[in-house]
């Protein structure tokens, strides 16, 4: 049975879609955004062992060259995340679909659906397809968060069991896109991202059309970070999109906040209310009917 690394399962989340949902965060991402507020989900653990020495409750140890995590001893202080210099976590657990589904089903009575996020969960389309199929059978709606860089047209079976996609539109201009997505001091990885960036950009464009056509666009999201994201351009381009129109899709404008973000973003101020309000007004003027600011 195939396992993927699960960073966390939150029994209840109120910010990952309508109603009460359980949210599954998968480990691993294909980009490294400047404003990423959970950079510890980006990479898989390389077992360097640095975090073992700084764990105050001895929940981590090295065994046969691998970092082993003992959940029972963990006091959730997150020191391991602060120690890690590889944008990872020693706490991610390799789980099968059945194991994730069992965790979700413990709280079936309280939730209306699940959301899978990450990292970038579309890196695991088969896992998602199987998990969503099981969820749909018990009446749970299925949402996924995505940066849109993986082409959904390759995974029609996944889309069949997906209620909706909450799609990040991170940038419109290609240069802005390349710079935003490749913010890491791991040079090899940075090079890899830059090599794929253009393809990622094209995939996002085609995903917008595909998902809108299939009525699977639950939400469009823009993180507003002045000088790093061309938010105004994104809104204008989305507003003028006519095949199909995207203006009735929920548009979420998210203010950048320097909390838990990598250097140098953590030295920058949060996006001002004025900028957020201006973008809100622009979106409204340009025809969006369902806009919110977070």
């Amino acid at each position, binding site marked *: 049975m195939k396992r993927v690394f699960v960073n966390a399962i939150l*029994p*209840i989340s*109120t*910010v990952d879609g*309508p*109603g*009460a*949902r359980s949210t599954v965060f998968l480990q691993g991402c294909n980009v490294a955004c400047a404003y990423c507020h959970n950079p510890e989900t980006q990479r898989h653990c390389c077992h360097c062992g640095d975090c073992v020495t700084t764990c105050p409750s001895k929940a981590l140890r090295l065994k046969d060259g691998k970092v082993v995590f003992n959940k029972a001893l963990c006091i959730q202080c997150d020191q391991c995340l602060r120690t890690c210099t590889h944008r990872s976590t020693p706490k991610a657990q390799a789980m099968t679909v059945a194991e994730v589904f069992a965790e979700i089903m*413990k*709280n079936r*009575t*309280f*939730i*209306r659906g699940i959301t899978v996020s990450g990292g970038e969960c579309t890196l695991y389309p088969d896992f998602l397809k199987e998990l969503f199929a099981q969820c749909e059978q018990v009446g749970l709606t299925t949402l996924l968060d995505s940066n849109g860089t993986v082409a959904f047209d390759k995974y029609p079976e996944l889309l069949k069991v997906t209620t909706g996609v909450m799609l990040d539109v991170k940038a419109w201009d290609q240069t802005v896109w390349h710079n935003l997505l490749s913010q890491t001091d791991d040079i090899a990885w940075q090079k890899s991202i830059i090599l794929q960036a253009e393809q990622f950009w094209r995939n996002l464009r085609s995903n917008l059309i595909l998902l809108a056509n299939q009525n699977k666009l639950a939400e469009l999201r823009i993180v507003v970070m002045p000088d790093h994201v061309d938010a105004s351009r994104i809104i204008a381009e989305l507003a003028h999109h006519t095949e199909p129109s995207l203006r009735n899709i929920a548009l979420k404008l998210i203010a950048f906040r320097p909390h838990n973000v990598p250097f140098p973003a953590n030295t920058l101020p949060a996006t001002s209310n004025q900028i957020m309000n201006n973008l809100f007004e622009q979106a409204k003027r340009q025809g969006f009917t369902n806009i*919110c600011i977070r």
Partner: protein
Amino acid sequence: MIIDKQVIYDTATSRELTHEQKLMAMAKCAENCLENFTLSARAEELFASEVIRDLYEGNTPYRPRYILPDYDKFMKQGSKFLKTDAPTDLDEALFALITLYRHVPSVTNFPVYLGNLDRMLDPFLDGHTDEEIIKKLRLVFTYLDRTITDSFCHANLGPEDSRAARLILEAEEPMINAVPNFTIKYDPQITPDELMEKAISCSLKCSNPAIANHAMCEGSFGDAYGVASCYNILPTCGGAYTLTRLTMPKLAQMASSVENFMNELLPEAVAIMCDYMAQRIKFMVEQSGFFESNFLVKEGLISADRFLGMFGLTGLAECVNILLKVEHDGYGHSKEAEELATQILERTQTLVDTHHAPYSPLTGGKFLLHAQVGLDRDDGVTSGVRIPVGDEPCDFFDHLRHSAKLHGYFPTGVGDIFPIATNVSQNTSALLDVVKGAFGIGVRYLSFYAADTDLVRITGYLVKRSEMEKWENHEAVLHNTTQLGSSPYHTAHLGDRKVRMG
């Protein structure tokens, strides 16, 4: 008992009590200087050590503890005694109600139940705009907050949707008043999601309404039930004669073993308490004259047949932990603690059922259990069957599952209070999903407030943090319940309740 003249003098000359508070305190002194009950030596011991508390009902019960008039009947017939005709329009309806409220006594001397407001007022709304109605409602709600100076006062809404229910919520929301409490009776089969989301949104702004599991509450007295005082579920056109309570941890402290607790101490305490309550009830029915002379009875707005005695208990958490000899990770966490908690409640229920409750035909002559939410001096006693603050399970759903296992034992009232992360106001359907799930597995009653609100629910009643601060600085405060709430707020660390859905 010899009357304590010093207490009376201090009360009369206090700089911190209002006139009304002085008056009520002195009446209580007078009532308490009579001796109307017979207690065995062992009973005296259990009262003195506070294993059993009479909750300040007084030594001379001259009115029932909780009265729930049949307001629907009043709206149809008016009152001869009050020279009030049945109302024919909205103004008359509002004035008739506030006139009647003035004459509904209780243990607090104020009405503890104001009726199903939406059902009573909805027929009178035609011909008025929303703005007119909201203005009138706000005037009345303000009047109630400033003249019923005790937040053990409860109005009900639902379960049906109505224009009145929606306007009451809209009127209430910005007022952020401690009085009255509101509960919306919720049944997913009857109450539309839209109304409930409005109710939840309202509660995240003004800590009202709380939510009652209508299907579960209806099971006790049929549709004719009301939520009164803090969260007491009682028959309308009736109420409760008395509520006495067992302080479980104090009893547990006397136990040499779990067997000793279950087979010797508990049966003895239950017997003493039931006998005491029976004496109180007999005095009220046979000697006080209330049921012969009070106009509410004469006009059929309450009936002696519809009163009952409430057997209260509190501090189950500490009781279980004491018996298991643990301090943390016991009650609310371990399987062992859960099993013991259930066994204690089963045993208590069985024992209470063996004692006869006089003048209680509605319950087949039995006392009904109630999860009593605490007194001002309770220290190391968590309200009812709640999990102590600071020891709550990390997982909100585990907390609710725990409650669901125990709420079924308390037909006359039990409930949990949760501060909710402020951003949930942007996704109220999420909290509604949780309520549906919780009610589906047997949770009886929930109330929520926003984590950063000034108006907090203490153990069931509402108090403003800013008012408590004034009282703690020795200033006079309008509501009695501010004085009452200040102590438990601090000793039980209620400001540190675990915030949920964050």
